[in-house]
């Protein structure tokens, strides 16, 4: 009935649906894996090079995968017009966005952590010493990707050529997520395992700005 309880109910539904079908997680994970393998053919994967190029490749793979994974987010609500049912049922339309972006953040983090271990094995990079810090970086970055991606998914579901449109809109917007996430990840994987709060600060700023913007203007996206 309130925003938070509506969000909780919808979040549970999103996770339950994904738990049953595994569609998003499976395809996203396999896609990132393919990208990592393909990228490996483009440079010499010695340990030093991997530490230098690896984080960038990892985050690029995450971004591309996210732009594919976020496609169905609002598209599937159009199939049976469940979006209208939700709009009639919830007290605050922001609950719809909040639930979806929380679910997407969770899905993104799960696939990212899975692939982090694959990355560690492929490139002999030690991730365990800094695992909690990496989770923090992944969380802040994924939150930014999910917030903007969920909003843009609502946009692209109303337009033509939506499969290409979503990445086209999302990628430039996420430059302020790509750079800090890559740099923070790189710093953590270096010998001194530094946690760079300057980069995390930019990520936090990004998340706050776009969450607020979505909260203020999101309901207009759902209008007809």
């Amino acid at each position, binding site marked *: 009935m309130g925003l938070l309880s*509506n969000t909780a109910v919808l979040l549970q*539904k999103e996770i339950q*649906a994904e738990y049953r079908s595994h569609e998003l997680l499976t395809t996203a994970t396999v896609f990132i894996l393919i990208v990592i393998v393909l990228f490996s053919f483009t440079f010499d994967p010695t340990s030093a090079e991997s530490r230098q190029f690896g984080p960038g490749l990892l985050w690029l793979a995450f971004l591309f995968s996210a732009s594919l994974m976020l496609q169905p987010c609002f598209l599937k609500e159009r199939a049976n*017009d*469940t979006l*209208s*049912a939700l709009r009639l049922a919830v007290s605050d339309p922001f609950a719809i966005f909040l639930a979806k972006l929380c679910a997407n953040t969770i899905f993104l983090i799960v696939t990212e952590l899975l692939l982090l271990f694959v990355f560690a094995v492929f490139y002999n990079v030690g991730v365990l010493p800094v695992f909690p810090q990496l989770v923090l970086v992944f969380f802040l970055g994924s939150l930014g990707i999910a917030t903007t991606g969920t909003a843009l998914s609502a946009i692209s579901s109303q337009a033509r050529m939506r499969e290409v449109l979503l990445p086209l809109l999302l990628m430039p917007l996420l430059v302020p997520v790509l750079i800090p996430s890559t740099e923070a990840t790189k710093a953590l994987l270096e010998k001194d395992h530094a946690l760079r709060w300057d980069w995390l600060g930019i990520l936090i700023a990004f998340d706050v700005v776009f969450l607020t913007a979505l909260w203020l203007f999101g309901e207009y996206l759902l209008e007809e």
Partner: protein
Amino acid sequence: MSQRIGRPTGFKFTKIEKRFGSLHALRRLDLEIAAGECVALTGRNGSGKTTLLRVASQLTRPTRGEVTFPGMKDGEAPAIGYVSHAVMLYDELSAEENLLLFARLMGVSEPRKRASMLLEATHLASRAGSLVRTFSRGMKQRLAIARALLHEPGLLFLDEPGTGLDTESMAWLVKTVRGLRDEGRTIVMSVHGESALSQWATRAARLEAGALIADTRGGATFQTVFAGGET
């Protein structure tokens, strides 16, 4: 976030216009539906019936004009039930899960009990745990109506609810609509001409190209409204 009120309410269209790009779906519509009326809305395909229902339920925002709900005080909003062409249900969830989801979202007290009761009433109790994906059109429609009734709405919109229903489901629908009308709820249903469903209407109106061309409120007979509108 106004409080939703379940008592029957009417609504009023004042100079409502709705354009979709170059398409004029509704033209300067003035309409008043009183609480408790059971209105059969008819008209050809593309006449604007669906748009009218969507604007009244506030799913669609009018390009111009105002929708008001007389009888609602400040901070109150009517509890609305909507059944449309699309089933508005999640294929990947079971019947019971669907009802529980919407019941919880709408703050229905004792959601499980209410869902069970509606599943019984719609003869779907035996399939409560089956995924909606496996349902026939008739079963989906019954479940859609159950969803619309979860929060005991005072205002119901049914968009061609009889489409694709087999005889048994249709008979059930007719009985249900009659029952809801007798309970005093306001019902607006779009229909394709006279049918078993429209016989329970207390009022009929015809739309043509987005404008109201006949209304039993305005003196026309049921027959003329359903026949074609011209008196």
